[in-house]
């Protein structure tokens, strides 16, 4: 993806456990969504740059892991640009967006 198509501001990092959770109950958006549970700091709905906004197979592979994510916080979601690899987390390399 070219720089023109990504947010201009510098990305930030967030850390937490990736969980699968029902969201937008009873609405037209209701679904199992991949969230980042940051403990006391709340939960963030995750979206990956270039990924399917409702069901992203890559995000689903992260469920259950504790990760540090790089990206941009938006009104209703966190736009993930990549994983910040933790020591020994080789899988992070495999899942960073192009």
């Amino acid at each position, binding site marked *: 993806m070219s720089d023109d198509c990504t947010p201009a501001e510098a990305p930030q990092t967030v850390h937490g456990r990736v969980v699968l959770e029902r969201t937008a109950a*009873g609405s037209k958006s209701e679904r199992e969504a991949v969230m980042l549970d940051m403990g006391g700091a709340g939960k963030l709905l995750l979206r990956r740059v270039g990924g399917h906004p409702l069901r992203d197979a890559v995000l689903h592979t992260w469920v259950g892991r504790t990760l540090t994510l790089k990206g941009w916080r938006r009104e209703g979601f966190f736009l993930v640009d990549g994983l910040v690899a933790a020591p020994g987390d080789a899988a992070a390399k495999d899942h960073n967006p192009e």
Partner: protein
Amino acid sequence: MSIDKLVVTHHGALIKKYGTAGVQRITKALRTLITADKRRGLITAVVHLDVAADMTGAGQAVAAVADAKACKQAIDRLCKAHDPHYVMLLGGPDIVPMVPVRNPAWSDKDGDGDQVVPTDLPYACDTAYSTNPNRFLGPTRVVGRLPDVIGNTDSSLLAQLITAAARAEPRAPEDYQSGFSITAQAWQASTELSLKNILGTTDALHSVPPEGPAWSKGQLSARVHFINCHGADASSQYFGQPPGVEEFPVAHDAKRLRDRVSAGTVVAAECCYGAQLYDPKDAGGQHGIALAYLLDGASAFFGSSTIAYGPSEGNASADLICQFFLQQVLSGASTGRAALEARQKFAGARTHLDPYDLKTLMQFYLLGDPSLHPVSTSGHALTRTAAFKKAFAKTRDRSVRGLRREKLIREGSHLAKAMPALEPIDTAPSTSVAKTLAAMAKETGLTPSQQTRMSFAVQPMAKTKVAANPSTRQVHVIKGPVPQGSNAAGVVRIVAIVATEDDGELLHVRRLHAR
């Protein structure tokens, strides 16, 4: 001279976004629109909210950087001063902000994550600025927004939309007889019912899956589009869904609309975030479907800024407000009047709005020039006589439009006074209602330990006779996960039961089905 149509924008925000040369291009396009409107019998004035000369007679100009509150107050003063028949907000939310109204359906558990609903509805109401949705139950003004792309620095797109509005012409009703409709397969029954109510037939219906998203030019050429699919925050696509399965194949894509939309097309989309105006940088550089339609020649797009509601079978909430809009357009209303009448009909059809219907009223709004009449109407025989033409040569449609506006103001004012407000409370349902709801919840499969409840008092507005007596009417929402027995993947669905009680008696109940 009276002004029929106000084009409202913010000069400082336009300059900051497009620079002087860019604004000159927009100004030139606006001159074309003013000329075209004059030909249509409309006196149009462009008002920059931050330019003192433009605000003459309507109080102080707003600041160089204006928030929604300042813009709402300035537009209220302008409407009081000029009593326009149409108000067109020019530019996206980074030019004229939308009002961030509190979402009555917001819930931090399993719920609707939109804490606020960005909306243009307050601009259509003569009540003062507020973020309380209960203040905007009685819209009286014909308002639409001709948007631009957030964050874009090239003014040619906005100029293109203005010029397209100038060129738009009413077409014969026959041109709007055929439609194009996309539904998520899971919601086909609901969409079929909507289509019968709009077009009288379901011939135009396409279900995703198995179809889509490569719609042919022939399919897209129909001038009435009705879409009931999934949408997502900052997404340039809509999505389908097979029944009972959490798969969301692409149903519609902004990238696939170019050079495929017929001039004068009118769209109503029920999708969550279906008409959201977002920064394309959050969506791989692609603006949304609503803008794609308008840029390709559509006259109007009616959709939601946030998460929307509607049942999988039957019609409610988003289904209804979208139907009302298209029905009014097809009967010859301007797109702005159709939006206002849809809002009034939706609000007025009930004694009170539950949190989901209240959100629906807030979130659906019109993108496009509100003064456009896509469908022409033939007047009664007298209108074709020389005496009639002579009598109304100067005023043309203004006088009869004024009568229509009087009626709409009366309707809206009545709604504002009569519709009760919905205030969050901690009170639990009465014992007998709780017992009934518990039985319904049990039959629905809701486990008591996993249920959550939101309760609201239905408060009559202060000036009504009903207000003399304290309200005993309450709305309770019970919500929780329900395992889907037939789903091998163990998928659970959230079900909400919405109950209205009065003085301890259960009056009404509905269930919002998970999808």
